[in-house]
Structure formats: structure tokens, C-alpha cells
């Protein structure tokens, strides 16, 4: 077995995982030394891996090490019963719940940005889907129509972004900022005039999928036995979009447009059409993410419900290096951080707010390239002028 930098990094991640495991049931060491030593080993392995050129996995090892070390300290200082309250199957189930909208939004971001259009409006598109899907679902009492409406709302917002940034050659950041603000205004306005204070209306929620045999398995069944349909759809979409981008001619065209639009144009690819389709697709996906929030996992809407999730999705795109599976891992990691923060807050009363800042800190670190630089598509953000 050769010792590759990737293997070193993986060993680091495992060590970090052990750091967490050492203080939770069933091992439950009541000491802070074990997790800290393991986290320290993970840090060393991560740095070694980075020094040898395996930046991304090494970075993950560092991230995992800090999560492991932190939770080790927190758990070792809390009593056993509390720890058992925190680390349950529920923690992992809620990790998936937190990650789902991030992955869906992030996949939209990947498609959009790989075609060369920057999309900082995922947040706004998500919020539009979140409200309009919810409203239609309350009116029709059909989650299918609600989901379609959510996608439509996201898609229409995306169409505005596409028109301004592709056709008019306008600044994509300005247009994205405008859509975020407009979406906040429009959804608050519509929410207050259509639903208002008349209480929470009945809504047809996106169903959960009950897996008959698997649900009876202890632990695992509690995690995946009764997940929302959107969670499974999210996993399917990661795979489908990965196939699309890397294994089909359309995916190749899309990437070509994002890397070198002039060259793509020269060989007969309609740059504008590809970009329009990509931007609108990102809106559809962001709309789905919004639907999951208001009538998938939850069953109500409140103003600014997305509350920055679109920006964490953007962070997942950057951290995941503009790749579908990268987005999945990043979102799961961010989702775990959120779930852990919530669990700590409710079970142990710890002020775990700073845990919520981790996704942003690590995205910055990834962006800066200290741990394997993220590389954006070459033509991302540049309007293309046909000649």
C-alpha cells in the first residue's frame, strides 16, 4: 500500500471522526485528552497532506479536526445523560434536513456558474420558491402543484437574472443583489396581503418516504427510515447532474461556454441559449430548495424564511469547487455543523452560535487557497458579446 497524500488526509479525517466517537455513546470517555490528542493527530495529518499537494482532502481533515476537537471539549465537560441526548439518530437525520436545501440550491449554483453566469441570487430564488410554492400548496391542497409553483417562481426570478446579465450584458452581481432584495420585498408583501395574520393555513406537505424494512433497523432506520421525499430527490439530483455535467455532450457544451465562450461560439454552440437554460435551471432547483423549507420539512412560511441559506449554498458551491459531489459533501458538512449547534443549544444550553459561523470561515479558507484553492469557471461573471 503506497502512502499517497490523499490517504494521509483520509487518515486525518478518520482520526477526527474518532475524536468525536471517543466522547459519545457507546465509548463515552469522560476525558478531554483523548479527543484533543486525536484532533491534534488529524490536524498534523491534514497539514502533511496539504504540504504534499492534497489540498482539498487535507482541508476537510482540518475542518473535521476542528469539529472533532470542539465537540470533544464540549461533550467531555457535559454530563453523560446530556451527551446521550445530543448524539442521537436525530442528529444525523437533522443533518440531512439541514443539508437538503443547501444541496439543491448549490446544485443550481453549480450549473449556473459552470455556464459562466455568477449567481449570488440563489437566496432570492429560494425565497420566491419558498413562498409561492407554499401559497399555491395551501390554495390547491396539492403538494405536487405547490412544488411546481415553487420551481416556477424560482425559474421566473432566474429568468430576470438571465435577461439582465445575458441579454443586456449587465453586471451579474448587481442583478443578483437586486433579485435578492426584490424577492425579500415581493414575498413579504405577498405574504402579508395573501396570508397575513389570518393564522397558519392548512398546507399539503411534501410526503415523507417510509422504507418498510429499513425503518426497523435500530439507529440507521431512525435516520433514513422516514425521510422527506425531497431528501431522496436531492441525492438523485446530485448524481443526475454529475452525469449530465461530466458524461454528456450537453454538459460538455455547458462547461465550454463557461470556460471559453468565444471558442464555444466558434464551434457553433449558442452561448446565449446555453446560459439562459443554465440560469433558469438554477432557479428551478433553488425553488425546490425553498419548497422543502416551507412545506417539505416545515409547514409554515415566515418572512425572510430562507435566512441566508442561499448564501450558505453559495458557500457550498465554492467549498465544493463547483462540482456536484463537492457541493454534496460541503453541504453535509455544513448541515452537520448546524445540526450539532442546534442540538448543543437545546440539550446542553451551550451558546453554540459560533458553530454556525464555521461554514463561512471554512469557505473563506478554501477560497484563499491555503488548503487547495477553489477554482471558478474561467468565464464566470463575464458578459458575452456576440460578434
Amino acid at each position, binding site marked *: 500500500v503506497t502512502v499517497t497524500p490523499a490517504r494521509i488526509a483520509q487518515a486525518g479525517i478518520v482520526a477526527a471522526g474518532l475524536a468525536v466517537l471517543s466522547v459519545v455513546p457507546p465509548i463515552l470517555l469522560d476525558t478531554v485528552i483523548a479527543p484533543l490528542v486525536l484532533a491534534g493527530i488529524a490536524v498534523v495529518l491534514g497539514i502533511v497532506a496539504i504540504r504534499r499537494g492534497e489540498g482539498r482532502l487535507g482541508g476537510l481533515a482540518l475542518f473535521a479536526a476542528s469539529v472533532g476537537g470542539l465537540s470533544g471539549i464540549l461533550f467531555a465537560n457535559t454530563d453523560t445523560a446530556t451527551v446521550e441526548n445530543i448524539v442521537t439518530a436525530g442528529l444525523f437525520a437533522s443533518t440531512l434536513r439541514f443539508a437538503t436545501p443547501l444541496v439543491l440550491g448549490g446544485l443550481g449554483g453549480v450549473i449556473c*456558474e459552470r455556464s459562466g453566469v*455568477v449567481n*449570488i441570487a440563489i437566496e432570492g430564488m429560494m425565497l420566491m420558491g419558498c413562498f409561492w410554492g407554499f401559497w399555491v400548496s395551501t390554495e390547491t391542497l396539492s403538494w405536487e402543484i405547490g412544488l411546481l409553483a415553487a420551481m416556477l417562481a424560482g425559474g421566473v426570478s432566474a429568468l*430576470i437574472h438571465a435577461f*439582465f446579465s445575458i*441579454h*443586456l*450584458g*449587465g*453586471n*451579474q*452581481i*448587481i*442583478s443578483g*443583489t*437586486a*433579485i*435578492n*432584495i*426584490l*424577492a*425579500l*420585498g*415581493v414575498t*413579504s*408583501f405577498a405574504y*402579508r*396581503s395573501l396570508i*397575513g395574520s389570518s393564522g397558519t393555513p392548512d398546507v399539503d406537505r411534501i410526503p415523507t418516504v417510509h422504507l418498510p424494512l429499513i425503518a426497523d433497523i435500530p439507529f440507521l432506520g431512525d435516520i433514513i427510515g422516514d425521510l422527506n421525499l425531497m431528501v431522496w430527490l436531492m441525492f438523485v439530483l446530485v448524481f443526475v447532474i454529475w452525469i449530465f455535467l461530466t458524461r454528456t455532450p450537453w454538459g460538455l457544451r455547458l462547461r465550454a461556454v463557461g470556460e471559453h465562450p468565444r471558442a464555444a461560439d466558434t464551434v457553433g454552440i449558442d452561448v446565449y441559449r446555453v446560459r439562459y437554460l443554465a440560469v433558469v435551471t438554477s432557479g428551478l432547483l433553488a425553488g425546490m430548495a425553498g419548497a422543502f423549507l416551507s412545506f417539505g420539512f416545515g409547514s409554515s412560511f415566515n418572512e425572510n424564511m430562507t435566512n*441566508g441559506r442561499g*448564501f*450558505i449554498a*453559495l*458557500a457550498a458551491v*465554492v467549498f465544493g469547487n463547483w462540482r456536484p459531489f463537492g457541493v454534496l459533501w460541503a453541504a453535509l458538512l455544513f448541515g452537520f455543523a448546524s445540526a450539532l449547534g442546534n442540538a448543543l443549544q437545546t440539550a446542553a*444550553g451551550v*451558546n453554540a*452560535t*459560533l458553530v*454556525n*459561523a464555521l461554514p*463561512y*470561515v471554512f*469557505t*473563506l479558507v478554501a*477560497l*484563499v*487557497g491555503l488548503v487547495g*484553492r477553489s477554482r*471558478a469557471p*474561467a468565464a*464566470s*461573471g*463575464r*458578459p458575452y*458579446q456576440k460578434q
Partner: protein
Amino acid sequence: VTAIRSRVVAMGYPLATLVFGLLVGAVAVIIVGGNPVVVYKQLADGAGMQWILQWIPGNPFGVSVKDARIGETNVISTLVSATPAILTGCAVGFAFRCGLFNIGAGGQLVMGAITSFVVAHFVGGGVFGMVLASIAGVLAGFLYGALPGALKAYRGAHEVISTIMLNFIAIQIGRYLVGIGGPLQKKNSGTPFSEKLDPSVRWPHFWGEFETAQVHLGLLLAFVAVFVYWVILERTTLGYEVRAVGFNPEAARYGGVSVPRAVVLAMGIAGAFAGLAGSGETLGHYYQLQENTLSGVLVTLGFTGIAVALLGRNHPIGIVLAAFLFAGLDSGARQLSGEIPAELARALATIIQGAVILFVGGEGLLHWIFRSRGPKKERTVHPPPTAATPGEGL
């Protein structure tokens, strides 16, 4: 003549944009069954129009004493909102002139607000503490702006993404500090607020009776900041370099300008403007840190700054005018009631603000509409509000 014409065009675009924005708002009002003319009249009154009208000689609009008094309260509220809007407008505009898109003005403002509070709270009483706290706020803003500048200059990290991330980091730091159980939370209060600052460290205020609605020193400092903004950009070597980099970084490099230095300093100075705004919100307006304000109103001010800089075309006077406009919209919306439900009004203000930004970004829209008529001409590339295109190559 050409110069005058270009002036008119330069004024015309923002005005057209504004009209578009108001039209979008009018559509929203009509949809919910209101009369947009009445709503906009109420908005103007809520921004303090009555107070201004009473000074017209002869009082042609017949402003009553009572209306004038209400108008005075409203004008004060507009001026209080305009103070940070001018400063964040400068924060976004200054970076724009260097070809950088500073989405992080909100985060820089929050860091300024937190730092000012911490210094004022722990250094304590008197003018010394007040001055120190103000400087500390500006410095914190400078550093929190220079950081993404340095990441951009030396590591190629795009400032749009990094400032978005830094905004959220600032929010989380604020939540941690004043949240329940946080180190700055007022003891045994059960609310996520800090203690109020001692009156001796607060900025002097000179108009208004209500504790957190007073025109304060910040308004004067904002005007000073606008002047500084103009002086740095138009009258110093640094400003020349900043603009050169904004116009064309490659050419600037060949001309001997240190591009990384210009980028770091431009973002730092931009952050300093936002940091001063944060000092003002702590020392002149709220006198305390509040979790909901830090993660709500204050961060949103960064987006107001984007709207202000875009509509004001990064011009000092334009920034001041645009800031007053959005501030008036903000305080006017708070007073709105009757024609449309009061709770819709704030959302309406947000819609108008978003629409204005959208149309400023799409100045090509006018060209696109008119290009499709008449003889087909060579397509011209219309420059965005800044010479370079911030956000390019993300």
C-alpha cells in the same frame, strides 16, 4: 455642449431608474387595491415633506402647525436613517471606483458597531472614551474591509464571495456576544441586548426628543466623510491609483501602480466608512447592541449602500442625494397607513429599492429597447456604472 449633454444624460439615467422603481412599487400597490398616488403622497409626508413645505414663503400648501410638528419628527427620522446610508454608500462607492464590489459594507458596519461598543463600554466615561471608541470603530471597519482586499490582492480570492462570508461571520460574532448567555449580554435580563452605554460616552445630538431618534454627530461626520471621499479620490495620488486600477488594472500595473496596495487600501478605506457608520449606530443611535438589530437592520444597511452608490453613480453629491432618497423611503414607509396596510409598507420600500438596483444594473435596458427600433446600428458596449466591471472573473 457635449459636456452639458453628458451631464444631462448622467443625471437622466438615475432619474429614469428611479421612475422605473416607483412604477414597480405602484404596480404592487394597485394589485392590493390601493391608489399609488395617495400612497406616494403619504410616503413623502412620512419622510417629512410637510416640514420642508412649511418653509416655502407664504406657506402655499397651507401646512398646519400640527402637521409641521409631525413633519419635524419625520424629518428627524429620515436624517437618522440617512446618516449610515451616506456612509455605506461611500463604502460601496469607494470600492466601485477601484473596480471592486463591496457587498460586505453591512459586515464592516457591524464590526464597527461592536468594536465601538466594546471600547466605549470598557474604557468608559467622558470625551476620551467617546473619541477612542469612535476611532476604534473606524479602525475595525478598516481592518474588516482590508481583509477581503488582501485576500483578493495576494490570494486571488474574489471579494464578492469573501465579503458575503465575512458578513455572516460578523453576524454570528454579534449573536454570540449579545445572545442569551453571551459575554456582552446584560446580566439577568433574559433579552439578547447589551447594557446601554453611559450617557457621557454617547455622541452629542442636536435635534429630536426621543432617545433613539435624534439627529446626532454622525450626520455631520457623514458629510465630512463624503468630502474626504471626494478629496481622496480626486486630489490624492492614492485616489488616482485607485481609479487607475478600477479603470484598467493591467494598464495601471504597467504605469507603475502597485495594484495589490491599491486594492487593499481601497477596501480598507471603504470598510472605514462603513465602520464609522457602525460607530454612529452604537454611539449616536441605539446606545447598545441588540441581537435582532445586528443581524437585521444593520446588515441590511450594506445593501442600502449598494443601492445608494449605484443610484448616485459613485459621485459624492449623488451618494448624498440617493442616501436621502432611500432614507426618506425607509422612514416614510414606517409612517404609512390607511391606503395600504401598514405592514405592507416596509415590504413596498424594499421592493422599490430592489427594483431601482435592478434597473441601474440594467442600464442597457433603455438601449436594448430603443435599439430594436430604427436602423440597425453597430452594437455598442455600454459601460456599467463603473469603468471596470466589478464582479468580473468570479
